[in-house]
């Protein structure tokens, strides 16, 4: 091997660890670019956040830094320099030398990225072996123990011999982190490593990333769709839209005074912990690669767009100290219009003293030998939104399924309008089923791919009976309008829709039978932040217009402030705190709630990042 890319710029190199210039990735068989004109640099020990919605090309950029393009994509231009190494000009063999040793990768979903057939110890050891990082097997074993300690995992032999499925999500992600930092790389690409983790676990993982990057002087690219997560971690922030970087600058400045209209809308979509502020989504949807308009790709969704925006792609221009934005009207400012949602929310307080439309009394539920819900009682008034917050494993979904009759409880009862309901949905009268509807977490799995939107939304009408086909079609059109979908969408199949549109269809399906209660089970957690904001806006409007009662289940505490009147916090199958949203968020009484709030990545009132320090300790132990 002639080029030995390891020993480039050694010694006290003051310059950036990574310089990316003019990166361009195209679709392999024509069809245009996926990303283009991407340039940035990262200093040693610095974390650069790369934010954007799904489809914006941020993962493509991250993988290109390792000289990798997924099937169907091809890196066609630009350069990636890490020290003296020109990554994009390396041969396959030289790339293998560099990957894992100089540049490493932390995947989005460690459950899928760790090999299910290999013990975690084997997967750690093979990185060291492939890069000859250790002289002997014994040294490698010592190194593995050291690596596991660094990421706060137990370094016992029994743990090292486990398979990935025997670890929790947080532990799996720590293994991936240990692997990435094993060979002391110069650059680590972290691709949404905390998506899908609980807030406390996420806070622990983020703290580990911050510590490792700082103590080993590693440059890190942190990719996320969640600005709040990046805010607590990155010194600088780059925002991507439709394959271009539209704004880059110091994280605090960018969040407090965003120059690009897209960034401003993205910031406005982040839920805040500070109370009942309305969220605003971004109207329209991001263009897919190969389907991007000429000129500024954001122009069709931008309220500031001028004629010039639609013809020529604006260049990145300086708008402040080390702050660039790709918008000619960046200086024009203008606050994001928040719409009438604010006033609506204010007038939405649940009427005090009204009889609950739905109440659950001492629900206990579980699986064969485990009790997951241990006696939970909650009630929701007409038009009220009650948020049920808890981490995964707290029993919130099981509780909701028990109420809906999808998971028969072991004991306890459910009352709808004061009438007790049968344990299973099958044995409940049609009227009771009509009045209570369930929206599932994952709109990619909950819609039948072989049915059109009209068939999907119309299905409950057929099941619950009554009415002609014309009446049903009219009702479907009416509901689609309520969830702000164009009528033409009725003829589409789910795979033609974006995630946000699918979730609107799922909500329309729930609304079509005119229910009194809507159970929303993590309905926004599979969606981008901006889409989440739009869904929350929608639900808030539906409450006001239709007097719907909503049970909103989420693990996202900041989100609660934007939607719910009351919050119930669940841990270990029990409700440990319940109260008005404002009170619970500002003056939490249970220590566990305080810890949840401390762990939640969120922006402060002025858009300033609240660092997400890990809360100490664990959720309160279950009562014996």
């Amino acid at each position, binding site marked *: 091997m002639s080029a030995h890319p390891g020993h480039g710029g050694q010694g006290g190199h003051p310059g950036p660890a990574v310089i990316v210039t003019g990166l361009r990735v195209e679709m392999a068989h024509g069809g245009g670019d996926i990303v283009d004109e991407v340039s940035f640099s990262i200093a040693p020990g610095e974390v650069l956040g790369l934010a954007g919605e799904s489809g914006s090309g941020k993962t493509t950029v991250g993988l290109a830094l390792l000289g990798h393009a997924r099937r169907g994509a091809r890196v066609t231009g630009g350069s990636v320099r890490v020290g003296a190494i020109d990554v994009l000009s390396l041969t396959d063999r030289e790339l293998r030398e560099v990957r894992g040793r100089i540049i490493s990768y932390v995947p989005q979903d460690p459950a899928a990225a760790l090999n299910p057939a290999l013990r975690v110890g084997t997967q750690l050891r093979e990185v060291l072996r492939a890069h000859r990082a250790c002289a002997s097997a014994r040294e490698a074993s010592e190194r593995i123990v050291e690596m596991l300690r660094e990421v706060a995992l137990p370094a016992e032999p029994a743990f090292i011999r486990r398979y990935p499925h025997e670890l929790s999500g947080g532990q799996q992600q720590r293994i991936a982190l240990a692997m990435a930092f094993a060979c002391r790389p110069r650059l680590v690409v972290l691709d949404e490593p905390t998506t899908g983790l*609980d807030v406390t676990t996420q806070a622990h993982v983020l703290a580990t990333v911050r510590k490792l990057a700082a103590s080993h002087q590693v440059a890190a690219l942190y990719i996320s769709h969640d600005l709040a997560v990046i805010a607590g971690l990155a010194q600088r922030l780059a925002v991507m839209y439709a394959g271009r970087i539209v704004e880059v600058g110091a994280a605090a400045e960018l969040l407090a005074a965003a120059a690009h209209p897209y960034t401003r809308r993205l910031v406005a979509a982040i839920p805040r912990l500070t109370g009942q502020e309305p969220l605003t989504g971004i109207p329209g949807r991001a263009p897919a690669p190969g389907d991007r308009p000429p000129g500024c790709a954001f122009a069709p969704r931008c309220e500031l767009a001028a004629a010039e925006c639609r013809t020529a792609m604006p260049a990145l221009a300086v708008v402040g100290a080390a702050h660039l934005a790709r918008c000619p009207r960046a200086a024009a400012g203008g606050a994001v219009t928040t719409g009438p949602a604010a006033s609506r929310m204010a007038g939405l307080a649940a009427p005090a003293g009204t009889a609950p439309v739905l109440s659950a009394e001492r629900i206990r539920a579980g699986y064969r030998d485990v009790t997951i819900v241990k006696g939970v009682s909650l009630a929701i008034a007409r038009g009220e939104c009650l948020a049920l917050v808890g981490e995964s494993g707290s029993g919130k979904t099981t509780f909701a399924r028990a109420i809906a009759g999808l998971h028969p409880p072991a004991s306890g009862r459910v009352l709808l309008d004061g009438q007790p309901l049968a344990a299973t949905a099958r044995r409940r009268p049609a009227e009771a089923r009509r009045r209570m509807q369930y929206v599932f977490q994952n709109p990619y799995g909950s819609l039948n791919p072989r049915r059109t939107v009209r068939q999907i939304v119309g299905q409950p009408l057929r099941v619950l009976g009554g009415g002609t086909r014309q009446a049903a079609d009219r009702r479907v059109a009416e509901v689609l309008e309520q969830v702000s979908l164009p009528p033409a969408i009725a003829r589409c199949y789910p795979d033609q829709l974006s995630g946000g549109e699918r979730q609107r269809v799922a909500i329309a399906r729930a609304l079509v039978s005119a229910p009194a209660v809507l159970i929303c089970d993590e309905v926004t957690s599979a969606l981008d932040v901006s889409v989440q904001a739009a869904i929350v806006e929608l639900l808030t409007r539906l409450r006001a217009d239709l007097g719907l009662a909503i049970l909103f289940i989420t693990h996202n505490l900041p989100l609660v402030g934007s939607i719910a009147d009351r919050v119930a916090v669940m841990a270990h199958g029990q409700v440990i705190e319940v109260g008005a949203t404002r009170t619970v968020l500002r003056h939490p009484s249970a220590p566990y709630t305080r810890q949840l709030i401390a762990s939640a990545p969120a922006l402060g009132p002025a858009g300033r990042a609240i660092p997400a320090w890990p809360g100490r300790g664990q*959720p309160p132990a279950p009562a014996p």
Partner: protein
Amino acid sequence: MASARSGSPERPGKVPAGTAGDEARADPPGAPRGPARRARGGVARFLLRRALMSAAVLAAVSAVVFAATEALPGDPAQAILGRSASPQALAALRRQLRLNRPVLQQYWDWIAGLLHGQLGMSLAAQEPVTRLLADRLVNSGFLVLVAAAFSIPLSVALGCYAAWRRDRAFDHGSSIVLLVLAGLPEFVVGVLAVVLLATTVLHVLPAVSYLAPGQRPWSDPSALALPVATLVIAVAPYVARVMRASMVEVMESDYVEMARLKGLPERTVLLRHALPNALGPVFQVIALNLAYLAGGIVVVEYVFAYPGVGSALQAAVLAHDLPVVQVLAMLIAGVYVAANLAADVATILVTPRMRGQL
């Protein structure tokens, strides 16, 4: 496993792994979790359970075989000896077959005999079935083993290589050839092989694989060549196609991408990361094909006049030799059950996740 991916480089639907209906999965860092410790006992219990199930399956098969051969309405003795048989001969045969006893008693005697290794007397050859079939069992077993020893590694390697060279010339070419071969019945393949290699075109191999009594099949490898080739061609295309499909899916998985991004050599990526995960579904197909070999061998042995259980079965059916037919039917059923059991065990061995769920 790998989710279906659309062409776009970023996957839609980032479903948080931790919230997708996994209420039992909290994350206390460092808290030990159970399945590792339970695994070994689980495998033993699983094996015992499956062995019992297999025995039950065989018992059910024995009832069907017995009913189909002896207990059906009509007189088996008459069927065996023909219409012109004398009443004395019929009576003697009925006595020998114990047809004059109650049906359940007959069945019980037959099962007890099977379990004690007393398989009865062949009616046609007038010698114990055990002696009649012993050599033929060895011959057929050897034929199947040799065919399996060639076809399984060959098809696994073919499938892997085609998946690795996905959408290249080799992949497309092999896919067409395998599809054609899979479409040909084995007697056509056998006859074609004879025409091409043993008669007019090239005469390099014997057209029939006759073994003298007492001669072992391994004493004359050239006699085995054509039957083995025919069986390999009958089985390998299916296994290779499933192997390719399974491997393609695994190669698209996040963990294979991760293995590459760790800088592992391509050989390690393929053999350590991809292959074990791709083999799981393939084991089932291999088992089905091995079991199919045990039955499909009848045709091949007939084409090549190979003295194995296949030709014995064919002869016994023609001669109404009930005890032989019964034993062979049970034998073939036994191979099916054993092959599927072996496949389940092999799948579990390459899938640690399943060990915890037994």
